[in-house]
């Protein structure tokens, strides 16, 4: 497939403090003991998308990711390049800076923090079928958590419902007619009448999530990025711009192409358009074509239009982005729980994974939907429920771990209790420490007998 994939992997995201550290950029945060970016790369590989550019913010993060890739990814199956951009640039800027590397006809932009089982191939196919300039992948807003524990979380989410994207679709749910993102969501919903007139009916939805997977026509993307220098973000600037101007396109679509291919391609192009019409399986031409032709053929000049499409994933597909601490816990829980087909592991009869090299003391129980990594040791009478424990951890006796994520090389003393918390690598928990809803940054030492609730702890970095 003539698709080039750009994976936006970010850098050391501030929102994920204290989980990210100088050793672990966002892309390498573990989800069920694998870096989160590996989920995206695996997905690409499965979809036969063989060329990917991973855009990383900052040199340090890039080096870390490069070394991880060279150690794990087989270059024959997936050719990955890592590109470094400045820190804190917008997504549009990031693409601008790798502009010269983009050569394929269409570009698939994927967020590196995506954990999903929706195939990007489907997005690419939709994109091609409609000959669209942009195709965005949308999925239903995840129902938070498994039913029994996540009730509090679910309440939170429903309150926030208004904060998701506001998306306008045509009745066939193929075209994107309106999108409001970022701060615009806080304002009233404003829909262009001209688009509504052309389509007749627009469905405004607030229950769809933009999965940050976009297919762009390369020439269009580059034109827009070059012409609109103020555009910072793909989601907030480029996509809304393309959606807004779809009935009055300022883009040079076919012109640019025929320049490349010479003059003889006009007939080909026409047949392509015909084909795309047939494939949209609409007996009538889409509103874009009607609008372009003008009513009754009376239009004084042909209006240019372009198509913005959507691919709406099936409701039962999993799709989440690791962009907050809450999301990190949720995704870890889901990947070894409800969405365990994503993890790539085979689960035992007890619906959990305990690495053969892990050692469990007597009367220690590991419940379903749990994972214990390579070489970890646990003392006696421990209890683990719905948690992920990394590799080479040393856990004492009488330890309770519930709804938590424990990274690698963590030492946990006797009698500790960890609930709903995230414990990063090399953390030391001394005896009888109690954590509830806490995040502990890498290398931190929790003193014996201490009791924390809802706190975020990190080692002070030497500056």
């Amino acid at each position: 497939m003539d698709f080039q994939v750009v994976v936006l992997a970010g850098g050391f995201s501030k929102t994920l403090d204290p989980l990210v550290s100088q050793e672990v950029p966002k892309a390498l945060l573990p989800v069920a003991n694998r870096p989160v970016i590996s989920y995206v790369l695996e997905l690409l590989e499965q979809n036969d998308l063989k060329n990917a550019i991973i855009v990383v913010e900052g040199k340090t993060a890039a080096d870390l990711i490069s070394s991880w890739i060279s150690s794990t990814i087989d270059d024959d199956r997936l050719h990955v390049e890592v590109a470094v951009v400045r820190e804190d640039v917008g997504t549009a800027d990031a693409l601008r800076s790798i502009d010269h590397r983009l050569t394929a006809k269409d570009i698939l932009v994927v967020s590196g923090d995506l954990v999903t089982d929706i195939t990007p191939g489907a997005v690419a196919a939709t994109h091609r079928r409609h000959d669209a300039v942009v195709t965005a992948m949308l999925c239903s807003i995840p129902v938070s958590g498994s039913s029994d524990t996540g009730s509090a979380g679910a309440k939170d989410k429903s309150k926030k419902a208004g904060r998701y994207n506001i998306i306008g679709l045509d009745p066939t749910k193929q075209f994107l007619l309106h999108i409001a993102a970022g701060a615009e969501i806080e304002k009233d919903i404003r829909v262009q009448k001209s688009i509504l007139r052309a389509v007749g009916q627009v469905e405004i939805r607030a229950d769809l999530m933009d999965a940050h997977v976009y297919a762009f026509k390369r020439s269009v993307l580059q034109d827009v990025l070059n012409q609109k220098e103020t555009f910072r973000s793909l989601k907030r600037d480029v996509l809304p711009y393309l959606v807004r101007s779809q009935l009055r396109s300022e883009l040079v679509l076919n012109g640019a192409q025929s320049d490349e291919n010479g003059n003889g391609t006009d007939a080909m192009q026409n047949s392509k358009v015909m084909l795309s019409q047939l494939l949209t399986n609409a007996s009538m031409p889409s509103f874009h074509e009607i609008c372009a032709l003008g009513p009754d053929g009376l239009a004084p000049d042909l209006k240019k239009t372009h198509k913005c499409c959507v691919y709406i994933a099936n409701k039962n597909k999993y799709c989440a982005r690791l962009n907050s601490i809450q999301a990190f816990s949720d995704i870890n829980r889901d990947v070894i729980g409800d969405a365990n087909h994503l993890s790539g592991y085979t689960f035992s009869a007890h619906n959990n994974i305990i690495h053969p090299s892990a050692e469990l003391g007597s009367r220690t129980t590991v419940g379903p939907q749990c994972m214990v990594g390579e070489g970890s040791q646990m003392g006696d009478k421990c209890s683990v429920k719905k948690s992920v424990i990394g590799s080479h951890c040393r856990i004492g006796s009488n330890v309770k771990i519930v709804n938590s994520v424990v990274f690698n090389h963590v030492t946990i003393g006797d009698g500790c209790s960890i609930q709903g918390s995230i414990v990063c690598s090399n953390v030391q928990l001394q005896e009888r420490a109690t954590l509830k809803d806490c995040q502990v940054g890498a290398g931190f030492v929790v003193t014996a007998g201490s009791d924390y609730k809802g706190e975020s702890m990190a080692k002070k970095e030497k500056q």
Partner: protein
Amino acid sequence: MAAKKGNRGGGGDAEEELTRVPLQAVLLADSFATLFRPITLERPKVLIPLVNAPMIDYTLAWLESAGVEEVFVFCAAHSRQVIDYLKNSKWIDQPNFTVTTIESHNSTSAGDALRIIYERHVIHGDFVLVAGDTVSNMSLTDALKEHKERRRKDSNAVMTMVIKQSKPSAVTRQSRLGTEELFMAIDPDTKQLLYYEDKADVRKGMISLEKELLFDNSSISLHNDKQDCYIDICSQEVLSLFTDNFDYQHLRRHFVKGLLLDDIMGYKIFTHEIHSSYAARVDNYRSYATISKDIIQRWTYPLVPDIQFFGNCATKLERQGKYRASDVVLSRSAQIGPFTVIGNGTKIGNYSEVSNSVIGEGCLIGSNVSIDGCYIWDNVTIEDGCKLKHAIACDGVIIKSGAVLEAGVVLSFKVIIGQEFVVPAYSKVSLLEQPLKQDSDEELEYADNSSGNIEFTSIYDEPERLEEKLRTELSNSQVQATSEVGDGGVGFIWSVSEGGHEDEWRHSVAPIPADKLVEIIKSATEELELSNQDGNILPPSGELGPDSVDNDSDEDARDDSAHFNKEVEATFIRAVEENHKEEHVILEVNSLRLSYNLTSSDCTGALFYAMMKYASDMPHGSSGELLKNVANVTAKWKKLLKYYLPSIDEEIEVILKFEEMCLEESTKELSPLFMQILNLLYNNDILQEEAILNWASEKEEADEADKHFLKQAEELIQWLKNASEEEEE
């Protein structure tokens, strides 16, 4: 029976289930509009024949077949004629179907009508509200059932509106019925109506929905492809709501919008979409033509000419949609084209051609006459060699030989068109002189006290007096009138009021001419370009960001003043559009000020903002035109603004507000005109030189970036300074 009704009025829920409530309907036999003038000056609209039967018969026949048992016919204009007609019709003695008339002489709107009906205490439950010009064959069963079910769950669901798929033309932005495009937002699951915009504000390229709507519904359908059938199923509350809100006039503009905006009472309106059945309203000449064609093409079955559903004459359907009454005298050489109805006793001469037309009873059509797309009523005489295209000729019209009616002509009762006379396109001819006080249609429709309308109803109510008046008038004016409609002709050609002329083609029976279409397309493209530009101006996310994040503390205060500004703006626009007096606006603004607890200088700022915004929202091509707009607005509303400028401080506030506006996205266009407008305000005595100079000196100390406008206005300030110095010397 009466006792039972009283019980039900008291509202026993269980009882209501058991006792059968007769289904009631309110039929408004007056559209409270003037789109059918001049015809409606002499005959009420509901008695206008539609394919040779009065409109009201279609409505009543449908109501009867839909199971309505009691109809209250509300008559205002020409009420005598309506009542007399009904008295002599078969509707009066139908089993299980009672028609009661309610007469009123001082109602000028649907709101008034419903208030009167409320006072009569005749409605005892859910009722159907329709206008007397509705043609439909829909079944009410489903809509009623839905309505009742919703009512049981939620007593706030007061109304169910019937809608139908009909996409307006993308070019003319009107539906095939000639009505303006309609924007609606509907909840796809509950079918609740969330937004309604019928007289679309062309200047706004955006629909804005309140974001709160999405908190309750995860999805909303926005529609531009639906037509409002003006068939409503209402609960009793609707009547009392009209009584409570005595300023509600129009059913849609006031009532529906009022309920949608009001979130205190929480009343809800729902929609019911019909798919296969027919429902439409004869609202203007275009819908008159469209619906006539629909009837001929049998979309309205069983309400078609060859079925006797009321007092209409038996006609026979022939091939190609030709309907012919029994004793029509047709010359052998006459050609009758498809989709034509010819009424009883009509004679058509040699070599005449008739197509796509309706011809009434007792008409005399000579030879070599060509009639296409016309609606000829009863007893019309058309002499040899006339050419008629897309015209309406009322009862008793005489068209003398060789005359030509161009597209869109309307000839009112008994008009005589002279020999060889060519009636220009879209003209309206009547024996009555055009009323001098010409309110525009729309204003009349919901004016608070439309004196013109009352006058007409009272004068023309009594047919005898009318006749008398006509006769005297005729003898007096005949000489003068003849010249207007040709040799031997009688009638006045109504001049179309200014501005209205432009739109005449929109609502006429004639199809829209091709050159008009091209014109519209051109302007539409330009507009699209404009709106696209607007879109581009939209700031990139970076600029929007801080706006929503910062200042948590005084957000409330800001919110309040933003609301206040919005309200003032709305008040002002209403004042302009409905021509309120300054005092009223002042009263309203003052009460707003009190309710928001703000100072009077806030009013000054808000009002000024509203004026400038209004001026910049008016269509304009160049900045010169914009300046003219501003000048017009300020000149007109000077007094109002002056009221809020008691001291220099307020005047400075105005300048500061103006500066703010120039930086704002939506009104950015004003910024290059900063000095000109400042000068204009000075010349109009709105700003005194002291205010401008104070402002200038205040600004001197500001940041360099802030001085942009100061520099722009430098010239003016310098001049003012010099002038004042001279004075001092």
